[in-house]
């Protein structure tokens, strides 16, 4: 995918409950965040697995953030925790392959507090910058 020089795409998979809820609250409160963030709403962060994350990274995303509900607050059962386990393994895999593990991470957000989502976005972008500095991205 051709991309403007210096422009970055951070794909945020946000769960329809707390994750997307927090992003909506951020919008209502007119909190600003980077235009690099591209959101895909998913039913639960537990639905996002290695296949979806790798598809994103292979098709132009520079990094991926998965944002789910707070601990013990998954609206299903424990999707956020399961997603964390898989992302943790993927991070280790990236390191073993000689790449940075900062391109992917899992966050949580609170639907009532827009700043939680904005904080997660900022952290994801900071991590991507670290990965670029280390020269560990897939690009």
């Amino acid at each position, binding site marked *: 995918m051709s991309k403007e020089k210096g422009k970055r795409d951070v794909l945020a998979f946000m769960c329809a409950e707390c994750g997307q809820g927090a992003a909506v609250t951020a919008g209502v409160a007119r909190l600003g965040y980077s235009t690099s963030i591209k959101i895909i709403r998913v039913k639960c962060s537990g639905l996002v697995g290695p*296949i979806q994350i790798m598809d994103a990274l292979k098709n132009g995303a520079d990094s991926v953030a998965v944002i789910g509900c707070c601990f013990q607050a998954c609206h299903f059962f424990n999707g956020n925790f399961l997603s964390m*386990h898989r992302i*943790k393994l993927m*991070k280790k*895999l990236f390191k*073993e*392959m000689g790449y940075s593990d900062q391109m992917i991470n899992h*966050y949580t957000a609170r639907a009532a507090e827009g700043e939680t989502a904005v904080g997660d976005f900022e952290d994801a972008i900071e991590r991507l910058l670290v990965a670029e500095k280390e020269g560990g991205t897939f690009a």
Partner: protein
Amino acid sequence: MKIGIFQLNGCDKCFNETYLLDKHINDNSKNEIFRVKNSEVEKWSEKDLDYAVVTGYITLENHEFVQKLSKIAKKVVGYGSCTTTGGIFGLAYQKGYDITPIAKIIPDTTLISGCLGEIEELSEILQGHPIKKSEILCTSCARKSTCEYLDEVTRQIDPQEDVESCFNDFGHLCSGYIANSCKEMCVDYGTACRGCKSSVDRAGFRMLGMFGTLMGNVEVATEATGKGGTDKLADVDDDVTESIPDVTGSFFRFNLANSVLPIGRNQSNGSIMSDIFIGRPIEELPLISGCIGGDHSISFTLDIIQAYEKGLIEDLPVSEKTVELRNNLLSLEKELNSALKASNVESYEKITNQIRKIAGNMNLSNLFFGGFKVPIDDSGDFEGYKKSIFEIREGDYQNGNIKYSLNSKGIVTKFEMEA
């Protein structure tokens, strides 16, 4: 019909197995079979073929030759996991070896995966029949899974303690979920499925997703974001990363080169063998050597096993019966090599069947540190040659022409093999 069989690189077990085509193809007398191996491949100049069967892993230097084959042969068949997905040699992709699955060079290749590739499937293809669709391994496995969340992951188990429960239920990673059932059936010989014959695309990532989910009760480290006040995944080592010391080798054992991952950026250690073994846990070593040793897989595997046994001495005792069975295997290996030298199909088949009887399959799944994983016959003296669960000890180990070093977690840090 003209059939060309080409062995490119790596172990030649699949190439040797194609000797059995004589027995499997009806009226093979009408066929002309050319067998071309390693260095002779580039010099080969036959003009037209009905089938070109490629075995062994493919490197950048072979691309031109494989493309040439697609022009001179009506159909190209990739036989064995090394050709179809990079196989176990594809683990060197982690250290920058550009190993290419054949379908990335010729998209319409017929693929027969498996380590060892199944000769029955190859003969069906060569006779123009479609391959029967294999069933998923879990449906034919005698063990049944509950898919309950795991509290911990186990690196070593006693397979005979419970023969009805799925390996994954013990927390022992089995790739059966993403594999088709095959002739080698490692699961029948106390070994969790290696995933050599994957049933899905991007098998490694699917298995990682599956097992990552199963690890639901294993503790994962989290920390406060510091921004907005919620929590996120922490970057420190935790029970999840500690439980699987080698993610690449555990989930991408046979399909790393075929995954969507970019080529590894780790520095090579000088030889493909050391690049495959370094970074792998000790309990994986005999299973890898069983797959890549070719003509010498038995002596290679026993050298690896005996090196560690010698290092642990009394902590990893070996019974006389075990030594006797191992010696039988070594003499069978010698006989096998003589049969191959003489191109004697009858004795090749006879000897491989004898090897399978002791070692379980041609990947030597039944061999392990301290003894054997499952009983070899019904004589009832299994306790006399049963493998033991061993402790992991840091150090340098050597036997025959194999030398390796382990760190405190049992991961290989150095591997040397004298030619």
